[in-house]
């Protein structure tokens, strides 16, 4: 492929971006080289001294990124010394080693670096020093051109000040941009973390729902079956003893008690298992809510408009909320009719329980409704209570489709 100039330039730029220190060193060398002609002065000692000054300026450019303040301090000191001693119209000959050269452009670069890499108060101080230096230089230099000193000084001042101000503004803008990127990255990290926590929470919620379901099934397949078999055996023993003559009455009483205990334990275990995970939930939320409505002590109507099944944990949460709200309506509202409705809304679902009772239901800390709210909040759900005195009461539970 034929090398394309633009592409090569792009490559070079990319390379320089990857090697900033080399780029700075190159910049320093270029500045130094540009001022080479101005360093050929006599005597030799003055030339050597001027070279040392210029090399120092170039070197400060080379280290500007690592040590912006030190580099600027060196550059600014040299600049101030040059401004003061480089022009001596009154005293005659200036200090030749301190006459300004092209390398002084380094000071502009250093001011830019300071503004880009250090807080604004530091870089503003740097700008002030630079402007002061420019002022000194112009004040020292202007009298030489006495003819129209004021106009020239104005032009020089505007030029120098403009260049310095531009460097500072560019640097400051770079600093702002960098800070913005950093904050953006922080925000991205926070968002990423939030997403991670959300996923972890969803897993925890789903896990616990699955575990409860497993416990219920274990009870169903294990303890409940064994207990039922035991009760059946005890029942048979009891009947056999009742039928055979000459049975020990005392033993019969004991067997009867054991039989009753086994039956009571079965009933208790059944209630416990149902509280852990109502088996009807396995047939879906609409079926479970229909059963709930059909078993309600006050007449309950029920409507469901759900096309996609929510996750089991959400189904269980909706079911227990409905059960609690139904029980509340039964106990406190004096309602004659209750309506349970579930429908899809946006990415989640909304369940409403409405009764025609006395109203006045409130979310109070430690109350039943507050407990429900806490429960639904674990999955970013909401609970709204609309219950004016005199009724009717509508409680809406919003849940996501997945934890």
């Amino acid at each position: 492929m034929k090398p394309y100039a633009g592409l090569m330039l792009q490559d070079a730029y990319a390379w320089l971006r990857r090697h900033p220190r080399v780029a700075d060193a190159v910049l320093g060398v270029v500045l130094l080289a540009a001022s080479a002609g101005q360093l050929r002065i006599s005597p030799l000692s003055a030339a050597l001294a001027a070279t040392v000054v210029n090399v120092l300026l170039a070197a400060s450019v080379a280290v500007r990124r690592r040590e912006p303040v030190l580099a600027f301090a060196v550059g600014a000191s040299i600049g101030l010394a040059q401004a003061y001693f480089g022009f001596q119209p009154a005293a005659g000959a200036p200090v030749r080693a301190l006459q300004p050269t092209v390398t002084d452009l380094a000071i502009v670069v250093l001011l830019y670096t300071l503004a880009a890499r250090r807080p604004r108060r530091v870089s503003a101080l740097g700008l002030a020093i630079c402007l002061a230096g420019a002022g000194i230089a112009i004040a020292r230099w202007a009298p030489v051109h006495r003819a129209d000193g004021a106009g020239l000084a104005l032009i020089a001042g505007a030029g120098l000040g403009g260049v310095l101000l531009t460097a500072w503004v560019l640097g400051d803008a770079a600093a702002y941009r960098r800070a913005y990127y950093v904050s953006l990255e922080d925000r991205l990290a926070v968002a990423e973390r939030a997403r991670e926590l959300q996923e972890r929470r969803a897993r925890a919620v789903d896990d616990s729902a699955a575990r409860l379901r497993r416990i219920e099934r274990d009870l169903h397949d294990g303890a409940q079956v064994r207990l039922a078999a035991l009760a059946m055996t005890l029942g048979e023993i009891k009947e056999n003893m009742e039928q055979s003559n000459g049975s020990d009455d005392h033993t019969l009483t004991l067997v009867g008690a054991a039989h009753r205990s086994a039956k009571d334990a079965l009933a208790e275990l059944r209630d416990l298992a149902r509280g852990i995970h109502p088996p009807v939930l396995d047939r879906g939320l609409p079926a479970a809510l229909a059963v709930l409505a059909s078993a309600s002590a006050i007449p309950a109507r029920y409507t469901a408009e759900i096309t996609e099944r929510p996750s089991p944990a959400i189904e269980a949460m909706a079911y227990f909320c409905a059960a609690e709200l139904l029980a509340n309506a039964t106990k406190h509202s004096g309602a004659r009719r209750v309506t349970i409705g579930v429908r899809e809304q946006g990415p989640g679902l909304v369940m409403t329980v409405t009764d025609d009772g006395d109203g006045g239901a409130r979310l109070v800390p430690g109350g039943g409704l507050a407990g429900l709210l806490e429960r639904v909040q674990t999955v970013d759900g909401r609970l709204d209570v609309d219950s004016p005195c005199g009724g009717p009461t509508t409680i809406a539970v919003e849940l996501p489709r997945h934890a």
Partner: protein
Amino acid sequence: MARATDTAPERLRIVIAEDAAIMRDGLTQTLTRRGHEVVAAVADAESLLQAVEEHRPDVAIIDVRMPPTHTDEGLRAARSIHAGHPGVGVLVFSQYVETRAAAELFATAPAGVGYLLKDRVADVSDFIDAIAQVARGGTVLDPEVVRQLLTVGRRADTLAALTPREREVLSLIAQGRTNAAIAGTLFISGKVVEKHVANIFDKLGLAPSDNDNRRVIAALKYLES
């Protein structure tokens, strides 16, 4: 529990479908000891359907929750047995009872059907009577279902019109008992029972019928409507 008053010593051919081995074996032994023949004892709905096809038993005792999903396999199997073999009685028994499931079952299978809580196996004779009743084409409904139906408020207005005694009678009707059995249970005469029944159907707006099963179904359907 529906106790048949006219129990005849008959030898029933029974299929058991129950995924818990301990319950399956226990039932098999108990029924065998009581003189019945367990022709097959299986652990899932598919094997149940095969066993019914093969043995044509008098009655199938079916657990609601069986593999693979452990939800309502037994109920669905019961319905399909009733559709394919109306002569085979189905007794569904479950760890939990649901009025809805009962209503669905009785709606599709109006005769030779039973729905009992698993706990009822503890009262062995009653349980075996229930099996016999279902085998004869009778109806058995768990008292717990009846209790739920009568306590829920869906038809509170209508049921409020019944006297406590009539509620008691309705509950016994829903359990599939004959008028004679109800009379025996409540220590009242058959004539009084008939009067109660007539009043109940009158108040519920149902035409009286001589058929026990249809009385149950009518009551259930009405309560579940």
